[in-house]
């Protein structure tokens, strides 16, 4: 296993990266941000099939961490293990260590529902509820017990503004969320997720169903949201990872010749600037330069 723990100084590395000149945030201090997720030797199984193994990485606060890699390498599987979305898949289970602020996510007294209140998720396909735009955003706060109409109005407006959608939908909040465009729906899903004030937002290929303009808007949005949230994004688009993320984890798939099983592994995890400029693993370099089969 060649996981490279990210220990180099982010500030220095960042300055080398030309694509981040318009980064709105101040350059972080030389000392690394606090660790949010600490995964060690994580393995995820579907029944007896081991889908991913050897995932060891630390995800840091208020950063964007990108998971990249070819199809079937388990990046989505790892992402979904971070807020226990595998609980609804029969037979799926996790081995190894998955700590969230030092607490074992899969500990005996940990409730998946509570975990998901702190770690929200945006999915590949925009999936608004078949309700009004307002009710979509107010859904989470209502579940958490907010009943006061005025307070809900405030949360809805604040979340829609944060998702850069308010101006487009403010006059039709009571219309169906299914009537707006795909890009707007995805931003609505982001607004719905941040309305419950999670600490982390997981994004599973949030732009794969969107056109380039909508993608740009969501990427800008992600950069803006890092001041409040920690973001983990799975993407097939390497340029996207290079554009938005602070750190990148590269996964690949390994074929076991004995039983013909494909298992995903984490190859390299490092600062995005370092990985895209000078990857330390040959497989990463092959993938990034397009030589990967």
């Amino acid at each position, binding site marked *: 296993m060649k996981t490279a723990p990210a220990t180099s100084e982010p500030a220095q590395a960042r300055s080398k990266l030309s694509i981040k000149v318009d980064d709105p945030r101040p350059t972080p201090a030389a000392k690394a941000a606090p660790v949010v997720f600490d995964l060690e030797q994580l393995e995820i199984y579907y029944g007896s099939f081991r889908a991913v193994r050897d995932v060891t990485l630390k995800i840091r606060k208020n950063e964007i961490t990108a998971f990249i890699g070819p199809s079937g390498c388990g990046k989505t599987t790892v992402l979904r293990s971070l807020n226990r979305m595998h609980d*609804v898949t029969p037979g799926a289970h996790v081995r190894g260590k998955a700590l969230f602020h030092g607490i074992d996510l899969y500990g005996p007294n940990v409730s998946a529902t509570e975990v998901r209140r702190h770690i929200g998720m945006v999915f590949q396909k925009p999936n608004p509820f078949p309700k009004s735009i307002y009710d979509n955003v107010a*859904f989470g706060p209502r579940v958490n017990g907010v009943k006061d109409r005025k307070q809900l109005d405030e949360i809805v407006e604040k979340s829609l503004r944060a998702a850069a959608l308010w101006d487009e939908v403010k006059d039709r909040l009571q219309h169906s969320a299914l009537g707006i465009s795909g890009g707007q729906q995805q931003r609505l899903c982001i607004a719905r997720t941040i309305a419950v004030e999670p600490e982390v937002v997981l994004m599973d290929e949030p732009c794969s169903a969107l056109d380039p303009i909508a993608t740009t808007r969501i990427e800008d949005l992600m950069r803006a949201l890092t001041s409040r949230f920690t973001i983990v994004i799975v993407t097939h688009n390497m340029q996207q990872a290079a554009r938005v993320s602070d750190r990148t984890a590269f996964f690949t798939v390994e074929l076991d010749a004995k039983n013909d099983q494909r298992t995903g592994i984490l190859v390299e995890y490092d600062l995005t600037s370092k990985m895209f400029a000078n990857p330390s693993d040959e497989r990463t370099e092959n993938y990034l330069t397009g030589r990967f089969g």
Partner: protein
Amino acid sequence: MTSMEPTPTPALDLTAKLSWRVAKNAIMSGLMLTAFLVVAVPLIAILWSVVGKGAATAFAGFPDFFTAEIPVVSRRAGPGMGPAILGTLLVTGAATLIAVPLGILGAVYLHEYGGNRKFARLVRFMSMVMTGVPSIVMGLFVYIMWTLTFGYSAFGGSLALSCLMLPVVIGSTEEMLKLVPGHLREAAYALGTTKSRTILTVVLPAALPGIVSGALLAVARAAGETAPLLFTIGAATAYNPQLFDGANNALSAQIFTNATSSFVAAQNRAWGAALTLVLLTFLITLVARVFTARLALKR
């Protein structure tokens, strides 16, 4: 020298050619039209004869037929069907109140919690068996379990009808729950919503139009059932608004007794009652449809 000239392209012909594919299309279209006629002709014939033979009786001296009490002497001509209309509404309404909530709860258990567990499989199997039980057997069952002890009442009929409706509601609701896309559940879970809350606020609302359709189908079928009512509600000729007490009547039971009578006046009343029942079912369906359309959002 001619090789320099470009060869002229043959005239473009985009018209349909006779081929096996075209013939197959025609044959299949013909078969579909036949199938449509096979279904539509009996339906139209039924409506035609019910309206043709029933309208004169039902709308003579409107609204007497719908309000007057049932004549005790059946050979006497004249209205009405009032008590039977009230009885049908009472019996079917109470049966709906029993069967629809129970059926929806059952389907939610089967689909959301039971899955493939042994108990869930048993319940699903029993529900299937229940669909196949003849309605008259349900009537006999309620007659023995309820009517023999408590006597004739509208509620006895409701019990029998709800036994008939229950498996239909369970089956159709479960099918509708299966159609709710998994990504909606995931979206709710990702917001930190509990399973029960997800079912109440996301899954059931998404499946509501389908659930209402299934329930309506069950109500319409139950409203026309005769056999289970024969043993359970009695045959009152006067209004009886009491659900639990005393003999009642229903349109379907009235159609049966009047149609088998030898007097023309009674037979006319049977046609009138048949038309009333058709109109009533139509009205209930319409109201429920408008209600669900109101719930739907504007785009």
